[in-house]
């Protein structure tokens, strides 16, 4: 049973208090959307969860193991994977090689036919199997997003953080990403989806949390969050403002 627990998380950069006591709990296969204006602390929260930066205080436990002081590779091996806001594919490596990296790093597969078959299956699902031997740098921006998602499939973590997976993606490829997210959910993964695409995040999420100036100001169903006055004030905007606009 997946269990991610974030308790009283604080992070400061000099005099800037970016996260102010964030608490969050994920139980089992959930699809949680994260909303918040720029500077709300979404990326900082993600970076702390994956071990890239250490919190000033607070704890993060994944399946009973404390992970907030681990190195990123240890966090990945503990079962948390992520994509990046700006795509970070290994550009001078082929698409297949990109997929081999996480599978071999975790050691649950070795080089050989099984690895190639697994990678092929992933690429077929993501509709980019025809690009398998091309260098990643030859892929379009949307295809590189898919490649990042493919690497997560090869990593096979319990918790997946998707940071802006729809940014700059063609509608046709967005359908593939939708299918990807639903598949991950059906396979029992917990997914944390960070996006500014309101339509997508409301359509997919079962639960929404909203960050504003480093504080978690709402946590509930999409409908509840949509009608939360604090969220409307901070992020969604009031109808009269929209009318005025």
């Amino acid at each position: 049973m997946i269990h991610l627990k974030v308790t009283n998380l604080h992070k400061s950069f000099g005099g800037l208090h970016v996260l102010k006591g964030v608490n969050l709990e994920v139980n089992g296969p959930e699809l949680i959307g994260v909303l918040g204006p720029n500077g709300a602390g979404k990326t900082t929260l993600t970076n702390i969860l994956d071990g890239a930066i250490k919190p000033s205080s607070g704890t993060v436990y994944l399946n009973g193991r404390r992970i907030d002081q681990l190195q990123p590779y240890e966090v990945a091996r503990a079962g948390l994977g992520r994509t990046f806001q700006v795509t970070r594919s290994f550009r001078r490596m082929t698409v297949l090689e990109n997929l081999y990296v996480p599978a071999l790093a975790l050691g649950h597969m070795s080089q050989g036919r099984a690895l190639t078959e697994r990678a092929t299956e992933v690429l077929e699902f993501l509709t980019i199997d025809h690009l398998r031997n091309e260098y990643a740098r030859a892929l379009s921006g949307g295809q590189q997003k898919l490649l990042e998602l493919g690497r997560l499939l090869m990593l096979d973590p319990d918790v997946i953080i998707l940071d802006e997976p729809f940014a700059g993606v063609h509608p046709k490829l967005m359908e593939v990403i939708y299918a990807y997210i639903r598949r991950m959910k059906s396979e029992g993964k917990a997914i944390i989806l960070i996006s500014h695409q309101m339509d997508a995040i409301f359509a997919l999420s079962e639960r929404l949390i909203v960050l504003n100036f480093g504080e978690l100001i709402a946590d509930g169903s999409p409908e509840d969050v949509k009608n939360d006055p604090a969220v409307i004030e901070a992020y969604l905007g009031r109808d009269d403002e929209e009318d005025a606009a």
Partner: protein
Amino acid sequence: MRQVPNIAGLCLVLFFAAFPLVYTGGNYDYVMHVLITGFFYAILASSWSMLAGYAGQFSFGHMAFMGIGAYGAALFSHYFYLTAEPTGLCTEYAFFGNWLVIKNAIGVTSTTLTQDCLEQAISGWGDSVKVWRMPVLLGIVLGTVAGGLSGLLVGLLVLRLRAAYLALFTLGFSEIIKAVISAEIDITRGQAGMVLPALFNDGVTILGTEFTRTDKIPPYYAMFFLLLACLLILTWLARSRFGLFVRALREDADAAAALGVNTTRYKVFVFTITTAMAAAAGAVQAHYIQIVTPNMLFLLQMSLVVAMAVIGGVENFVAAALGAIFLQVMLELMRTSFSIGGVTVDMTTWRLVFFGVLLMVVLRFFRNGLIAPLIDYFARAGVAEETIAKRTAKTGETQP
């Protein structure tokens, strides 16, 4: 098509293996010397290519590690001896019925006999006591280990350094090593350098043919097989998960770590392996030329290795090795001065200008060198056609 690089590589190996046996042109020793030096630079360029081209760790300290290997072998052969009797003058330890003698450090002196503890003992013994030099091979191994351990240490120190900072750190390290060697005259003899025994000091017999210590064929094959061994190890590493991970490290260390790659381990590992190779090359070269001096560590030497790797192709260690051999041969061929309309062109100087121009042209127009793209062209033959065919089959499109 994809086998062309492998077949060409095999042909080149056979060519270089047979060359000393079939070459009948003039200046035999000189030609062999040029190739031995070419192989030496090829080891340095290919190992640097693994470090910089594959792993993205732009170290400018590679010649320092070569120097550590060379001086490691030199210090070992200079200071350590075995004797049948204790000298009573040197530092010495009982060693399996003999004595391990460590000579005292006397620096540069014209009164070696009176200050050198072992020489004093020998002058007293005459021929009655046996004195043995340490095996050359052991010195090479120790020099290699010293270089690898230094690489391990530097690898640990530069974990958080990237790009220009890493380059400057390793450049500083290289200069420190050179300064220490120059300054510690008592131990290293400073600019006077240290003399080493020849690679095969007592001669060697190969396939029934006896070679003396000055013959070129034994050191030719020693350096050639060391190069082959290095290339085989690099090939094995590049095709293993190690190669995949260090390339991922080069592309994006943070993304690689987020996918479970222990980037620290592989960064240190690649430093250790490649610096050990540089040290091995240095140790063998030191015994071949029989002298080591701090000038081996000049920045110009490092620039030469970098240029060789860049002109061959820094992202392919075989291309880097070929670039090194090609450039070494070209630089020697271009030594011949000539006249144009009564004006003599002194090629001993101008050849370096041509070399510089070639480097600039390659950097401007062929970012991955002159040889690596050729290898890549054949190794990736058919990839574009395969992509187009699969895409057409999937979408029914007729245009790529």
